[in-house]
């Protein structure tokens, strides 16, 4: 069971899974939760929205049914993140749209035929299936009652209402086939355009904080919120036919299984699957609907528990997986912060220019918003979309409290005691290990404790770059605008922080010499 667990670890981490530091942190801290994680052969990725999740689950089920072990990494991020992950082999396949491929991946402004797209992708070592059947193009949507009142029916009609507030997704704002060319094409010049998360955008629309939003034509929310799709009267949006992109290295049996999905999902079916996914909050269950085409929703609901047990993970298993990964991220980064932070703190405690540089650097890192730090690391060669990046970012965050507390702890040792140690004739190393560090131990441990608690909290952001952890349910909850799912991640993260805090309180009693606790 353990070895299976480590197999999974080794595909992620830059060093040997059996090395001593790995064992110390992970075994000691994590095997408490000791769940066997499946060593996945084919890794499926998905973007951070419902349809991508559902298509990912459908692919997973199809491959599993063909006897191929799979893993689905849900909601890894946007197009570029998935594309880079596919090209670098971190994932083997994910669902994509032809329009997105042309504009965002191939960076072409002209229209390409399906064959042209396929041959361009081939140059990058990526294959494409035939279309799955539906066209999920971009659309602008408004609340039906408001659109009718203003007489807005087409995108061109928006020109007459520059007072309308646009709440658009960040991706749409930046896309080459997105907001800017659309506005230029239709001569739109609204007074207010803001970027907002896709799922939150619907809530903003419903509450009247915004008036116009971008959406996908198969979006289940269109019927749920009673929205109207504005007609693309000047045919601006290109075709967005759904396909699967896969690495050309993908094994033949997996590819054959995947190709069975070609031409099997039309718009109506996709909207139904999306609606089911958002209603039940269960992508596995929604995906199973695809395989039982004549199943009524009543029968489906009755089979809810059975389905979630058969095709999905139980909640406790998911929680264990999230928590284990969360502790892996936080624990590893903390270990690095300690190993590097304490020596830096010792160095900084000697004052002078170097001390200022060290404390200044650690302080500056702390002021970079965590999200921005992740975004800065992702494009660097060694990092990318990986656990490595998450651990590095967390490590940098954990550094300051440890460096600062080590430095102040050492500087606070009274001069008379420092001099006594010198006068005794103790060597510098003996003074450090036997006198200075034990005397500063309370301060150093307090710094480590602060770092640990910060890391547990910040590690939830790791899910943004597909590194998993308790941020995963928080992100999908945000995506679904579902508070219960958010709490599934937020509550365990908070509990974890409290547990870590009390663990360190206990550690104080072991590690701080008795003479300092009187």
């Amino acid at each position, binding site marked *: 069971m353990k070895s299976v667990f480590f197999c999974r670890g080794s595909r992620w981490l830059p060093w040997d899974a059996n090395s001593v530091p790995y064992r110390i942190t992970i075994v000691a801290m994590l095997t408490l939760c000791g769940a066997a994680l499946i060593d996945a052969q084919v890794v499926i990725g998905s973007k951070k929205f419902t349809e991508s999740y559902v298509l990912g689950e459908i692919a997973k089920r199809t491959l599993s049914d063909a006897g191929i072990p799979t893993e689905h990494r849900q909601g890894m991020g946007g197009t570029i993140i998935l594309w880079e992950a596919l090209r670098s082999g971190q994932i083997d396949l994910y669902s994509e749209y032809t329009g997105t491929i042309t504009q965002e991946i191939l960076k072409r402004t002209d229209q390409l035929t399906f064959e042209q797209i396929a041959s361009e992708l081939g140059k990058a070592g990526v294959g494409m299936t035939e279309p799955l059947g539906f066209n999920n193009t971009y659309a602008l949507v408004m609340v039906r009652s408001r659109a009718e009142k203003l007489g807005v029916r087409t995108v061109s009609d928006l020109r007459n209402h520059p007072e309308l507030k646009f709440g658009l997704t960040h991706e749409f704002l930046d896309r080459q086939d997105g907001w800017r060319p659309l506005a230029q094409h239709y001569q739109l010049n609204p007074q207010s355009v803001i970027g907002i998360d896709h799922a939150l955008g619907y809530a903003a629309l419903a509450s009247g904080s915004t008036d116009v939003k971008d959406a996908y034509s198969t979006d289940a929310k269109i019927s749920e919120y009673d929205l109207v799709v504005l007609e693309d009267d000047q045919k601006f949006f290109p075709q967005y036919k759904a396909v699967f992109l896969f690495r050309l290295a993908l094994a033949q049996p997996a590819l054959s299984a995947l190709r069975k999905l070609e031409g099997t999902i039309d718009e109506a079916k996709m909207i139904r699957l999306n609606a089911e996914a958002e209603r039940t909050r269960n992508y596995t269950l929604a995906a199973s609907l695809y395989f039982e085409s004549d199943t009524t929703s009543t029968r489906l609901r009755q089979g809810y528990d059975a389905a979630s047990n058969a095709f999905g993970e139980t909640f406790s298993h998911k929680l264990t997986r999230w928590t284990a990964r969360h502790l892996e991220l936080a624990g590893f980064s903390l270990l690095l912060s300690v190993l590097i932070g304490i020596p830096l703190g010792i160095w900084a405690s000697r004052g002078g220019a170097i001390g200022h540089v060290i404390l200044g650097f650690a302080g500056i890192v702390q002021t970079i918003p965590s999200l921005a730090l992740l975004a800065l690391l992702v494009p660097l060669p060694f990092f990318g979309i990986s656990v490595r990046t998450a651990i590095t970012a967390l490590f940098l965050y954990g550094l300051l409290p440890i460096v600062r507390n080590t430095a102040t702890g050492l500087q606070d040792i009274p001069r008379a005691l420092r001099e006594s140690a010198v006068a005794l*004739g103790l060597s510098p190393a003996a003074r450090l290990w036997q006198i200075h560090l034990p005397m500063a131990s309370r301060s150093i441990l307090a710094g480590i404790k602060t770092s640990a608690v910060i890391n547990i909290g910040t590690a939830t952001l790791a899910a943004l770059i597909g590194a998993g952890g308790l941020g995963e349910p928080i992100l999908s909850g945000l995506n679904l605008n579902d508070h219960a799912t958010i709490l599934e991640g937020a509550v365990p993260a908070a509990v974890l922080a409290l547990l870590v805090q009390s663990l360190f309180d206990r550690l104080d009693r072991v590690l701080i*010499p008795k003479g300092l606790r009187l």
Partner: protein
Amino acid sequence: MSALVQLVGVSKTFGDAPAVHSVDLSVERGKTTVLIGPSGCGKSTLLRLIIGLIQPDSGEIIFDGAKIAIDKPARRSLGEGGIDIVRRRVGYVIQEGGLFPHLSARRNILLMARHLGRAENEMRARLNQLCALTRLPENLLDRYPLELSGGQRQRVSLMRALMLSPELLLLDEPLGALDPLVRAALQKDLKEIFARLRQTALLVTHDLAEAAYLGDEIVLMHEGRIVQQGSLKDLRQRPATNFVSEFINAQRSLALT
């Protein structure tokens, strides 16, 4: 030459203020030399120079015939371990004891011996000897400094300084923070200890009675210079300057009240 330590023309300046100005001093073997003078006269600075916590700006410090010098070549001449070798031949006791709060009394005393890898039984024997010598009950050895009284702390500090049987003992106002009764008891014990060990000691105090009681030789300092050296009788009957008489009269009048 029976001088263990000799200072020749030693000067030390902190910032603009000269702390010690061209001092010549001999510490004779087997004798207790007492440095006395008002606060800030440079007496503690002399001790810190001898133990190498600070370096003189000019002048020479000679310990047992070898220069403990400022420049690198001379430091090298001290051999491997340099100044640390000298420090192990010197015991140093400061006002508050300078005990490490995270170590028990026993571990404070044995710290340096352990560092040097001395044999356990040898250390235990020495520890028993020192307990008897300093009149510290053995059951106090497992206490931490915070659990000891001020007098007990000074006894432990003294044991730590004497652990390696140093040739020279430096004491920087060791009794300064103690109440009068404890102080009197420790003065008596110190005198006995010095006598029994024939200990070469250099003690700093600002209390003339203590200096007279413990010192074979009294060195009176003022503003970084040695003003007069000799017995209390010398100082009283043949004061070198007005300052000497003032200092002695001030102390005597305090003692009479």
